[in-house]
């Protein structure tokens, strides 16, 4: 374990306080979790795998959101903007120009990071903080939604259909229906995100970002370039979130304005992270594992409801209502989220 810690370029500082073995332990735990997750599709049925893929998309978005809002302290209510940029970059480049989704992913991430940086700069320039910042980002996401609905080259409200190919193609990220690759690709993206988070948190910029989050004035007085650190955090977060969007387009073969930029998408990025634990590595993952299968589970209950829930049969909206109650309860009674609360309880 110590070997890992020394090999990592970020942890090998001379300061004994920074020499934490927990990073190495975390990395080992991550490898184990990802390895277990990787064999999952081999043992479960196809329907469960579909739910698992959706859970992975939730998790990727939440990990991205968590970078900026959890570690950076800049609460975003508009991550749909960046998810949507990823989804639309992929769709547009693929459908109109036949460009490989792998390239589009990189392009989308770059555009998304740039857009996020500009938006954050506009907001932070005037010290918009807290709720004000959150709603400003929400407004920007709405702007993107309206834009897409009014731009001809993005096909307005029609959206894009990804053309089906006759055979499997790695370069076009298209495989036969039910292929496990549709599960392993987002899992790999999630893995990159989780290891990226570990690296970010222990890096200098990550430490700066957390210092700025905890006390901006103190951080600035120590010479930390507050704005630059914040914008870098935002760029990472937005760029990563856009990967979820690109994969979404590839997986569902369709993307429209509401699926990409709708406010529900922003909510989907926030809720897993909040439920699992804001500003923790495992929080978004735990939250996604709760939120991802929840609607499926509720749908199952509703199909054959127990007697006392009979009145709920055929009713829509219950799943989101349950999310909502869960969100309120967690914020009120477990402000550190499920993972954060458990960690605090079992830590000496």
């Amino acid at each position, binding site marked *: 374990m110590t070997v890992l810690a020394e090999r990592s370029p970020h942890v090998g500082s001379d300061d004994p306080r920074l020499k934490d073995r927990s990073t190495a332990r975390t990395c080992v735990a991550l490898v184990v979790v990802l390895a277990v997750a990787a064999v999952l599709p081999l043992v479960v049925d196809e329907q469960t795998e579909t739910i698992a893929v959706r859970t992975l998309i939730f998790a990727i978005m939440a990990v991205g959101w968590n970078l900026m809002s959890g570690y950076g302290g800049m*609460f975003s*209510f508009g991550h749909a903007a960046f998810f949507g940029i990823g989804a639309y970059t992929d769709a547009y480049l693929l459908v109109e120009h036949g460009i490989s989704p792998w390239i589009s992913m990189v392009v989308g991430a770059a555009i998304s990071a740039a857009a996020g940086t500009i938006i954050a700069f*506009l*907001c932070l320039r*005037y010290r*918009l*903080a*807290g*709720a*004000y910042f*959150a*709603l*400003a980002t*929400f*407004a920007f996401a*709405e*702007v993107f939604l*309206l*834009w897409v*609905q*009014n731009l001809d080259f993005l096909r307005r409200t029609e959206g894009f259909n990804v053309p089906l190919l006759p055979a499997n193609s790695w370069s076009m990220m298209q495989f036969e229906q039910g292929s496990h690759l549709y599960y392993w690709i987002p899992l790999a993206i999630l893995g990159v995100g989780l290891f990226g988070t570990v690296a970010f948190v222990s890096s200098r910029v990550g430490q700066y970002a957390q210092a700025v989050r905890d006390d901006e004035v103190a951080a600035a007085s120590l010479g930390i370039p507050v704005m630059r650190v914040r914008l870098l955090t935002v760029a990472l977060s937005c760029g990563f979130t856009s990967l979820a969007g690109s994969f979404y387009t590839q997986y569902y073969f369709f993307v429209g304005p509401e699926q990409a930029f709708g*406010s529900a998408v922003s*909510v989907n990025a*926030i809720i897993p992270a*909040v439920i699992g634990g804001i500003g923790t590595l495992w929080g978004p993952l735990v939250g996604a594992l709760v939120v991802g299968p929840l609607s499926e589970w509720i749908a199952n209950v509703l199909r054959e409801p127990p007697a006392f829930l009979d009145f*709920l049969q055929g*009713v*829509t*909206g*219950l799943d*989101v*209502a349950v*999310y*909502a*109650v869960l*969100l*309120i309860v967690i*914020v*009120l009674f477990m*402000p550190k989220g499920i993972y954060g609360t458990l960690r605090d309880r079992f830590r000496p």
Partner: protein
Amino acid sequence: MTDTSTSPPGREVEPPKEERPGRLTRSLLPLGVVAAVVVGLVLVYTVGGKEPGQVTQSIATGLLLGGVYALVSVGLTLIFGVLGIVNFAQGAMLTLAMYLVYEIVVSGGVPVYLATLLAIPVMFFFGVVVQAALLNRLTMAGNEEGPLLVTLGLSLLIINVLLMVFGGRPKRVPTSVDGSFHVLDAIVSWERLIAFVGALLVAGALTLILRGTSFGLSIRAVSANTQGASLVGVDVRRIYAMTFGIGSACVAVAGGLMAPFLSLTPTVGEQFTILAFIIVVLGGLGSVIGAVVGGLIIGLVQTVGALYLPGTGSLILVFAVFVLVLFLRPQGIFGVKQ
């Protein structure tokens, strides 16, 4: 913080006539904004390339629409000014109020405007309970994100419970007032005019309460300095709960007045959350008159803009105004730089 001590609302279209010397510099900007709006409208008339009748119509529609926006925003700005939290559920509460009015009208056979009066205390109570049960602890702790997340959850909860109870099919509130009349070349519907007048009345009443009663004084005291207010014996928790209740009651009025000309779906109010937020930012956080002026401006921008950008295009203009405000004057027209 609350700007309620400037001029009473209802006069916002024309410049305030009497000015105390100290306020002169601060009142120049609102004057400038009003002048800019007037100049903009004159330009649309003269070189806009549209028929004058059409322009008059969209100005009339815009002002009436703006009145409704103002009504939703007044509640939001009050809650923000006093509690320092953005109520993300404002739009959903508006929907809730509309369904409440709908239910009273349909099952009670009560005319819609009377139903609105009945809905006000219910929504007030709802607001007080939400603040006392869910938000007070977070607000007292100075937590900013917590209330936002709770109100987000509340918003999702209200929308989806309404969906579960009433279904997604659009509903219409039956109304006895109908028809329209002509002003200049424009057609004005009675329902919308009543909503507009109602908005001004509510803003006026709110200003009177804030300025003229000891309860209003307590609210302003809490808004200006929470700790100081609690030291001189103001029950801050109670004021918080009452303020949220008043904000919620404003939405009840708005919902009742809007129900006759909107078709009800569980998501009908959603767009108002962000519009009201933009209006509050434009007018200045915590300023009642700012919310009214901001509402009218945004209403005008939307309808006059729709002459050139049909469909949802005119909303882009609204957001452009928002970005411009963020850029040039983030504290808003009537706001004070912090």
